[in-house]
């Protein structure tokens, strides 16, 4: 019980009956829970208690789930290791001494350690899939618009989705069924039924991959760690032996995904996090001097280094004279990546790659060099830029016993395809 998976352990009981009755669902601490503090892993919100529930929390409780607490995370979702949390790092239960991945590291660690049956995370550039891969559990980043973001404290709205983390694909699919669906309070939600499918996700977890066409984007495999690639190839062989057809595809523009992702995410973050001025909530900057001085003091005190770094870089990339050079180019890259994914998915049912190109890092290893940490997101960020659904399922372990995840990407609203494919492995 010492993985530091939770920031706040406080139980919220759901309805007596429902599809999640008798099960515990840990909730990432950037998802609002009425009456239970929601810190986003930040000193800025250490005492913030939301006056309302996020839509997904309402749906969990209506479905009978018990919430055992709020899970640790990189501050405001900004990190790949859960080490930027103001509440200390989380340790990986599946790989002692190593990071659980991030930013939803607490959620994945809680599930991996059996401290919760299921968990919710949020994924802006891989923050569900990375910790799922590193902790040896399953995580789904839904199609943009499938799940309501109402009550999710925003980091980069155009990229992020709330999604499930679970020990098995079927359990993740059951949780996704509960939280998915349109919401009047999030105008970016869309109804799966109006997009050629339905919400019967758990039924798709039948493990039947006979005849499934699996494309492997070589651009996401070349350059990955050797032990990771070996484990990934073994899992592909497993799918092939069950009747899946494997062939290579190309998505050349993914080589720009990390840069495009960080320009867009930091730009959106610099605007979103402007709300933290210490007046309505958060750390107060006091009343000395004018309001600019007070706000700057509040933000110096309340934000950690990674958050400051991203706010500054985002402000820079959007400032006069640099907008066309960085932000507009990043939007071009996003459109390009999206188009190439659509083309690749016209020749395959799902696309498979390692979720992370490296195994879980040792704790403390990646904090000193931000660029190294950003590059670890090479395989997950393209999916957010393309608004597509993706699942990470355990593919096995490296020779050193470190968990490796396989990422399966589907077409928009193709959750059932990735659930079906993933359920052959976990």
């Amino acid at each position, binding site marked *: 019980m010492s993985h530091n998976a939770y920031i706040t352990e406080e139980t919220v009981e759901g309805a007596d009956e429902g599809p999640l009755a008798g099960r515990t669902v840990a909730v990432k601490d950037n998802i609002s829970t009425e009456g239970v503090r929601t810190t986003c892993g930040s000193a800025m919100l250490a*005492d*913030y*208690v939301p*006056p*309302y529930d996020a839509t997904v929390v309402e749906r969990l409780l209506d479905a009978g789930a018990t919430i055992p607490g709020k899970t640790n995370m990189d501050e405001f979702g900004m990190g790949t290791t859960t080490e930027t949390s103001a509440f200390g790092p989380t340790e990986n239960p599946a790989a002692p001494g190593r990071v659980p991945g991030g930013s939803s590291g607490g959620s994945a660690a809680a599930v991996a350690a059996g401290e919760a049956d299921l968990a919710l995370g949020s994924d802006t550039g891989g923050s569900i899939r990375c910790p799922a891969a590193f902790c040896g559990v399953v995580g789904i980043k839904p199609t943009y618009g499938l799940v309501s973001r109402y009550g999710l404290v925003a980091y980069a709205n155009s990229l992020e989705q709330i999604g499930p983390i679970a020990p098995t694909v079927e359990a993740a699919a059951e949780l996704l069924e509960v939280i998915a669906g349109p919401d*009047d309070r999030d*105008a970016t939600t869309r109804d799966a039924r109006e997009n050629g499918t339905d919400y019967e996700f758990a039924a798709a977890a039948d493990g039947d991959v006979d005849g499934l066409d699996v494309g492997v984007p070589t651009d996401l495999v070349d350059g990955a760690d050797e032990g990771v690639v070996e484990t990934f190839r073994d899992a592909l062989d497993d799918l092939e032996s069950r009747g899946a057809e494997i062939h290579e595809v190309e998505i050349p*523009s993914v080589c*720009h995904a*990390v*840069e*495009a992702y*960080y*320009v867009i995410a930091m730009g959106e973050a*610099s605007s979103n996090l*402007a709300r933290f*001025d*210490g*007046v*309505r*909530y*958060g*750390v*107060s*900057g*006091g*009343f000395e*001097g*004018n*309001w*600019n*001085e007070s*706000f*700057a*003091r509040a*933000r*110096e005190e309340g*934000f950690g*280094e990674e958050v*400051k*770094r991203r*706010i*500054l*870089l985002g*402000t*820079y990339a959007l*400032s006069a004279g640099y907008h066309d*050079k*960085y932000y507009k*180019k*990043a939007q*071009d*890259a996003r*459109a*390009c990546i*999206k*188009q190439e994914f659509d083309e690749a998915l016209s020749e395959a049912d799902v696309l498979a790659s390692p979720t992370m190109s490296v195994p879980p890092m040792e704790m403390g290893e990646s904090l000193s060099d*931000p*660029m190294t940490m*950003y590059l670890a997101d090479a395989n997950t960020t393209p999916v957010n830029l393309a608004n597509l659904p993706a699942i990470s399922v355990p593919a096995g372990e490296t020779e050193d016993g470190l968990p490796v995840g396989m990422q399966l990407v589907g077409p928009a609203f193709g959750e059932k395809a990735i659930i079906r494919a993933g359920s052959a492995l976990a």
Partner: protein
Amino acid sequence: MSERAVDPEEVRHVADLARVDLDDEEVSRFAEQFADILASFEQLDEVREVEAEPDLANVMRADEVEESLDRAEALRNAPETEDGYFKGPRVS
């Protein structure tokens, strides 16, 4: 790795725009790190322009009065309040 550092004055200027106070140590660390990060962002120059079809649509709803937070709830997290209002710093 870093070929050059960003001018520390530029870091201070951006921090000022973003309303974030930084200490001297943070300024020099960021100046060094930003060189690497911005150099990588510059690789976006190679990206080709594509004809993007934006799948954006305006989503409208009727402007009707609905239940909302009461004043006490809305003020509950404020560091300071006065007479039922948020208390903010002086404008100038």
